Structures are given as structure tokens and as C-alpha cells.
């Protein structure tokens, strides 16, 4: 259905995938993962274009680590998580889990692989079947993967509910009898039932009140510590991600635009988009006044992304110029372990000559606005 996008004239020839933070022994590794959705219009629903929801993402997730993925609505973070689990079939790219080529799996082999990879959804209200007891919901995975039957399964379900902080006897109740936080715990118990190594957490606490959110965050961290779980933690809330993640990928219009350890990313965000995102987080401290970078406009439509750097129309970098609209910035390592896609943030492999040929008038200069503690 989908046609391959014509390479833009200014784009350099396709290089080997740039993998930010490549690991020697990854649990999960993704290379050039792409998901394009056709845009249909007209009476016969012909595909007239495509939305590049995920546009060539490469990354590794280590054993027992939390990789945070942040970005605003439409940045592709949810599609990324679902594509990894093949809940959505990718358009292109490679996914390896524990060395196994996930995209080559079919039928039974795929089911077996899925045991290792689970997902927790954002909305604890719509992700549970209202006609199934929560016991039956948690038990389903045990049955499908033949992990336990009969009394042993009942026992295991009770144990799982207790592990997530619910009472064993709740197994016979229905989802409507529970609060949002409790339902999210059921969702976690369901994911844990099959003893996965990896869980995609897709905005798992966004729908919860602050006090309940804290309970669920602590639970996820305890489970990780006790079971060595790895998480892909997808969220729009930067403070939650900083709290949970070891390393963080920032996404914008389907691409990774910055990648670093949580410590480096939050201490020294180099991508102007990340800087703006961080500066926009309201700080629960009325004394600290922050210098806020207010971005102009909205996230552009992923069906029609801007040329060059996809962020350039909203960018506040003082050296932003015509080159940003033509040169696609490579994701490059600007400091050890810190990957950024910005040709104006030095150092860069895009030479000043190359930038000038693309119409640049301002030389790259380090821009690191002080975000906090400004009065």
C-alpha cells in the first residue's frame, strides 16, 4: 500500500543507522524502525500521502533498565511502543529481542516471544474487559501460555494481586468495583502474570491522581528491582520520566532528537526542543521563577513535516538560520553518551562550509539557557 518516500534532495545519502547509546549486550535492540500510516482521502479512500509516525528510530534497551521516551502528542512515542510489540506491524526496520529477530516470527513462535514482552496501558478504565472478573483477566495469560492451571492458577492469581498491592480475594470482583489506581494495579498484575523480561509502560500514570500516581510509580520501581524487569517508559510528563528512567529518548515528529542518561539530559538539555519542553513544566515552587521558553505554534502535522530539522519552525536557538530548513540534522554524540540532532549546537560533523552552502549565516554556538532558578 505504502510507497517509499522520495528522498528529499537536500538529504544526505542514507548512512548506517546511528544508534544513540548502543549497548554491548542489549535485551532489546531496534534499528531504523519505521511506521508509516497511509493518509486516505476522497470517495474511494485512496492513499494520498503518509504519516511517518515513527521515522527511523534506533535504540537499545538494556537488561533491567528503564528507557524513558518523552515527547508531546503526535511525536510517535505510543506507536513506537506498540510497534516493538508488533501490536502494530512496522513498515520497516529491525527488532531484536534477546537476539531473536522479532519481525521474522510467525504464529506460535510469536506468541511465545510475546510472553517476554508485555504492555501496560494508559487508561485503566478501557483496558480491562468489564465483563471479566479481574481474576479471570490476570489468569488469561497463565492459561494462554500454559503456565498454570486449576488450583495452581488460582493460587498464582492471588499471589500476583497481592504483589501489586491488592487483596487476593479481589479476584472475584469486576473492574467497575475498583478505582483508577487499583485498575492500573490489575493491569500490572496481568502483565506480570506471564513473567516477562520487558514491559512497555505507555503513560501508565497519566490518568491517575497525584497521590495514586506516586503509589503506582513506587510499585513499578519495586517490581523492577525485585524481578530485574526492563521498561520502555513512555510519558509526556517529564518529571515522572526523570524519576523512573536511567536513560531518556526525546522524540519529535517520529524521530529521536535527543538521547542521554536521565542525569545528563535534565542537567544539560542540548536540543532546543528539550530545553523548551523542560522549561514548560510548571514547578511546584512559587518562589522559584523560571525563565520559560514559550514555543510558538503547535507541533506540525506528521503528514507534512517541515524540511530540514523538523523542529526549525519553532526553534529558539540564536543561531537558527536558513541551513536548518534544508539540512536534516544527524543525531550525533555531542558529549560522551549524549546524542543530539542539532547542527547549531557544537560540535557537529556538519561542517560550517556545508552549512554555508545550505544558506547558513550564523555559526553554530553553544546555547544552554538557564532554565531553573532564574528570578
Amino acid at each position: 500500500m505504502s510507497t517509499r518516500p522520495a528522498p528529499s534532495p537536500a538529504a544526505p545519502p542514507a548512512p548506517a543507522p546511528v544508534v544513540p547509546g548502543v549497548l554491548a549486550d542489549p535485551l532489546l535492540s531496534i534499528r531504523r524502525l519505521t511506521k508509516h500510516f497511509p493518509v486516505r482521502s476522497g470517495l474511494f479512500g485512496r492513499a494520498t500521502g503518509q504519516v511517518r509516525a515513527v521515522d527511523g528510530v534506533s535504540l537499545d534497551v538494556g537488561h533491567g533498565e528503564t528507557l524513558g521516551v518523552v515527547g508531546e502528542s503526535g511525536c510517535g512515542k505510543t506507536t513506537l511502543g506498540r510497534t516493538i510489540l508488533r501490536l502494530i506491524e512496522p513498515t520497516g526496520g529491525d527488532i531484536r529481542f534477546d537476539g531473536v529477530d522479532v519481525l521474522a516470527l510467525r504464529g506460535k513462535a510469536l506468541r511465545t516471544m510475546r510472553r517476554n514482552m508485555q504492555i501496560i496501558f494508559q487508561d485503566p478504565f478501557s483496558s480491562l474487559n468489564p465483563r471479566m472478573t479481574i481474576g479471570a483477566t490476570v489468569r488469561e495469560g497463565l492459561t494462554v501460555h500454559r503456565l498454570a492451571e486449576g488450583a495452581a492458577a488460582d493460587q498464582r492469581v492471588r499471589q500476583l494481586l497481592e504483589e501489586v498491592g491488592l487483596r487476593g480475594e479481589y479476584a472475584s470482583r469486576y473492574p467497575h468495583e475498583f478505582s483508577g489506581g487499583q485498575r492500573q494495579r490489575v493491569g500490572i498484575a496481568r502483565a506480570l502474570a506471564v513473567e516477562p523480561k520487558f514491559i512497555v509502560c505507555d503513560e501508565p500514570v497519566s490518568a491517575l491522581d497525584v497521590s495514586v500516581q506516586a503509589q503506582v510509580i513506587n510499585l513499578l520501581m519495586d517490581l523492577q528491582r525485585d524481578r530485574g524487569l526492563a521498561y520502555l517508559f513512555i510519558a509526556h510528563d517529564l518529571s515522572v520520566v526523570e524519576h523512573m528512567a536511567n536513560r531518556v529518548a526525546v522524540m519529535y515528529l517520529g524521530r529521536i532528537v535527543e538521547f542521554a542518561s536521565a542525569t545528563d539530559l535534565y542537567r544539560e538539555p542540548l536540543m532546543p526542543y528539550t530545553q523548551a519542553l523542560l522549561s514548560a513544566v510548571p514547578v511546584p515552587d512559587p518562589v522559584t521563577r523560571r525563565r520559560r521558553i514559550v514555543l510558538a505554534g503547535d507541533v506540525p502535522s506528521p503528514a507534512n513535516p517541515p524540511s530540514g530539522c523538523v523542529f526549525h519552525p519553532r526553534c529558539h536557538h540564536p543561531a537558527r538560520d536558513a541551513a536548518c530548513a534544508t539540512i536534516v540534522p544527524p543525531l550525533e554524540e555531542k558529549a560522551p553518551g549524549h546524542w543530539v540532532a542539532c547542527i547549531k549546537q557544537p560540535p557537529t560533523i556538519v561542517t560550517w562550509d556545508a552549512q554555508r552552502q545550505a544558506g547558513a549565516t550564523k555559526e553554530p554556538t553553544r546555547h544552554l539557557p538557564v532554565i531553573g532558578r532564574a528570578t
Partner: protein
Amino acid sequence: MTMPGRPGAGEPLLRVHDLRTYFHIGGAVARAVDGVSFDIRAGETVGMVGESGCGKSVTALSLLRLVDPPGRIEAGSRIEFEGRDLLSLDEEGIRRIRGNRIAMVFQEPMTALNPVFTIGDQVAEVARVHARASRRAAWERAVEMLNLVGIPDPRERAKSYPHQLSGGMRQRVLIAMALVMNPSLLIADEPTTALDVTIQAQILELLADLQQRLGLAVLLITHDLGVVAEVTSRVLVMYGGQIVERAPVRELFRDPRHPYTRGLLEAMPRLGRQRDRLAVIPGTVPPPTHWPTGCRFRDRCAFAWPRCANEPPPEYPVSADHAARCHLVDEPARAGAVAAVDHTS
């Protein structure tokens, strides 16, 4: 971005006294709002915070008498606005207040707009209905309002339909609609909750700007203490249908006295504090049909002692503008245990 209040600037604009809004469902009574009193002065921004089910939104709807049966504002409640008793007005009278003097914006910018009319028509409609403006004058007013709320190229954009706008732009349209009649009070119920953080920043900036330029008073209802810290001058913390703490914003964050307020502040993950264990308020908000006796927070409170079960705490004054509904204020010696308790278990 702080909007200074104007303490002592004459009579309050809004005065709410002992507001009680109950829902009578079968044999049960849900006391969603149960004895709420507060004032809002002209031009100030007051934050109302609390989690789902604490009574914030029902309080807001009650102010405009928009509570549908089985909900009912109970006898003895008083709401005075610009010197008028809103609860004794007839339907026509309260309609004239709504939209004209008190306006409201909600969380869902998509569902609040009619998908089949242009945004210009919808803003103009307000002027036509409320001010009986001519078609042309109403349209001009709509364009002026869209410009005021920062919609680029407002004359052209007025011809757009809601689905052609982003969430942030739709929220601007709703704010424009709310402000057409120059109200003196804007009630904003979670106005930025459905928006991305960068768009939230734009909307908060807009509200602060409008508040200052138009001398508008704002009641900002939110669950986000970060938003409260950035844009309000005074804060009301709600729990169990009551105001459990009220204070100027700086004082609330510096010296929270109610364990619920403290719990909310500590439970938030904050930038710059990595991978600490978060403090937790155990349990969840009880249903409004079953508030605990005595203090309504006591079953989730680490410091509760028998007095809390037996005696509902009054609002104890902490300082001139600061009060908390907690017996700890009365028995500060017990508060000494606070530091020793580990909240993180």
C-alpha cells in the same frame, strides 16, 4: 507570572458561605460539597486544588447554578456575587449572570465547541445572544476576541471549524467565548489538563496576560500544584467536599499545615530529584456518600489519633490568611512527630 492579589481592595467580588451541594441518590446522600466558604476579590487569581472526587468541579458548577438533579444546593448555602444573592435569583436572572458577569472554561476543548459551526460564528453567537448585537457587530466582536486570545490571522481563522484547529487553539477559542461579555470572574476548570506541556505554558501565559489587562478575577481549578504555584496568589485545598487548607500561595508551599496538602506536595515527582522513592498518601479518596466521621482525611493520615475520629476539625487559623482543618494546628506538640515518620513506606 505571579498575579498579585489586591488584598483589602474593597468588598469581595464573590462571597461563598457554607455552600453545600448534595446528590440525593436512592436512599444515599452524596455530600459532594459540604460547607465550603471562600471569597474572591476583583482581579485576583485563586487556585482550587485537590484530587478527583474532592468536590472542586461541583463547587464550580454550583457557583453558576449548573448542578443538575439529583444534585441540589442545600438551604442555608449562600453565594453573593457583585452584591447579589445568586441563589435567590430566578432562572432569567442567573442566565444574565452566566456568560455576562461570570464565565467558565472547561477541560475538554473539543466537546465544548459545536463541530458544525465556524469558530467565528460560535464566538459571535455569544455577543448576539447576550448583548443582542447585530450580526455584523457580533462578527467584529468575535474577530476582536480571537485576536485578544492570540489567534493568528483572526479574520481568516474565524471561518475555520473546530476540527481544523489544534487543542491549544480550541482552548483559546473557548477563552475568547468566555470573555466576549467582559465578565469580572472567570472560572477555569482544569483548562490545561488535556494539553501538552508546551501548549499548557502558552495558555497559562495567556490567562495571566488577560487577567492583568482586563482586571479579571480567575478561579483556577486544577489538580496540578505546579500550575497553582505558577499562576495563583491564593490557594484553596479541597478534600472530602471541604476546604481543608487555605493560604497565600507562597505560604502554602513553604509551610503546609494539613497532612493532605503535605502529602500532595511530597507525592509529586519533581524535576531534579531522580529515582528517589516517592512519598505516598495511602489509600484513595472515599466516596462522597461515606465520608469518615470526624476528620475526613483521618483514614489516610499518618498522624491520626482518637480525637480525629471523634471531633470534626474546624478551620484553625495559622496566620492572618492561612487556615487548616486539622487538629495538629491545635496540638502542635503532636506535629513534632511529623519529622520522625517515614512517609515512603
